[in-house]
């Protein structure tokens, strides 16, 4: 029964993600700047190919990781592990295309993260992450010593435990995976921003800027999706049942509210980042950044 619910949940997430991608892809067709420059086109093609390969690998890894550990420990890790695989794909694409735009020349411009960062989506993502971390800290502190259950009292001489509960048994591996993901995201974004480019014409430069903006947004998008999926899993499998029990301590309700807020903000952030990833606007100039 539980396994069925899990697979139903994963299927729902997958279908929702595919539907979002299709809708955005259809509505964003032709909006990104085009370029006839071989190097610019090659960079875009390699990044797209790497993302497709990374998605396939992520699905495979999710299937393997979900079976790791006991009591659904591996399943809790799957969103962050899938995101890690996706980001590694982005890093590989950046490494392969490192010299694609070099021609011995250089434009005297300052390329910084501020030029390519989708600010609204990034700020929302930071809020979503902060709320999820706060919720995880609350649930970890409230958990029983075994780190995966929550004790409750139902009356005189009536005690019980609820499981699964997001204690250290689940949140410690999640924290490790999350830190690894953040480090890889930082590496990927740095590689995107610092990718060398030579003397490009204005339209080619605009197309390359769009590719960089899209790559940064796509990297943050997958973090937002991982945060949203983790928050959704926390609500469904851990918080939903105890929150509505009459004897629930206030900290559980606070954790529930924080997690739901994190979920909503992460979804809004993911939508904003997905729009930028599929239909990047013109990058800011050095002065605007």
């Amino acid at each position: 029964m539980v396994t069925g619910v899990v697979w139903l949940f994963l299927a729902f997430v997958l279908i929702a993600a595919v539907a979002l991608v299709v809708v955005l892809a259809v509505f964003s067709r032709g909006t990104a700047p085009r370029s006839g420059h071989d190097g610019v086109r090659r960079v875009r093609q390699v990044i797209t190919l790497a993302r497709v390969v990374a998605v396939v690998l992520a699905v495979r890894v999710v299937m393997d990781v979900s079976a790791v550990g006991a009591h659904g420990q591996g399943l809790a890790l799957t969103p962050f592990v899938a995101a890690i695989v996706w980001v590694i794909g982005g890093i590989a694409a950046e490494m392969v295309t490192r010299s694609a735009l070099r021609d011995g020349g250089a434009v005297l411009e300052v390329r910084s993260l501020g030029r390519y960062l989708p600010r609204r989506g990034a700020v929302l993502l930071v809020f979503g992450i902060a709320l999820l971390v706060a919720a995880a800290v609350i649930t970890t502190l409230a958990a029983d010593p075994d780190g995966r259950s929550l004790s409750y009292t139902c009356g005189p001489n009536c005690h019980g435990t609820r499981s699964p509960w997001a204690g250290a048994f689940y949140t410690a591996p999640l924290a490790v995976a999350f830190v690894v993901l953040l480090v890889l995201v930082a590496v990927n974004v740095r590689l995107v921003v610092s990718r060398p480019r030579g003397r490009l014409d204005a339209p080619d430069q605009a197309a390359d800027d769009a590719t960089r903006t899209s790559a940064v947004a796509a990297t943050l998008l997958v973090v937002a999706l991982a945060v949203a999926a983790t928050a959704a899993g926390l609500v469904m499998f851990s918080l939903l049942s105890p929150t509505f029990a009459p004897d629930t301590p206030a900290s559980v309700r606070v954790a529930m509210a924080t997690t739901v807020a994190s979920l909503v903000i992460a979804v809004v952030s993911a939508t904003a980042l997905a729009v930028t990833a599929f239909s990047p606007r013109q990058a800011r100039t050095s002065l605007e950044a």
Partner: protein
Amino acid sequence: MHVRIDDGDPTPPYEQLRRQLLALVHAGGLPAGARLPPIRQLAADLGVAAGTVARAYRELEDAGWLVSRRGGGTRVAEGAVAPQVPPAVLTLAEELVQRARELGADAAAVRAAIDRALARPEP
């Protein structure tokens, strides 16, 4: 505005870069206060070592054309004013460059010829 390193030019890459940046400052392409790319970025774009760009920047800093501040990057110095060139001298230089190009000389050869002429003692 762009710069380029010519692999076929016997002039060291840092000197090529220094001359091009100075020419841009003199021509007004890089106005006072304009920010230059970070050393690592420009070196990666040009495909040269970071030390090459650092040396070009340092020499221009020593000459007072650029200023570097920690966290503020490298900028064209506020006091960097392009030297006034009399119109007659500019016309002569343009004629020289045009004639040299007709003879097949490249930019490096023209610069070397002018440097040699300047190095001769005045009569």
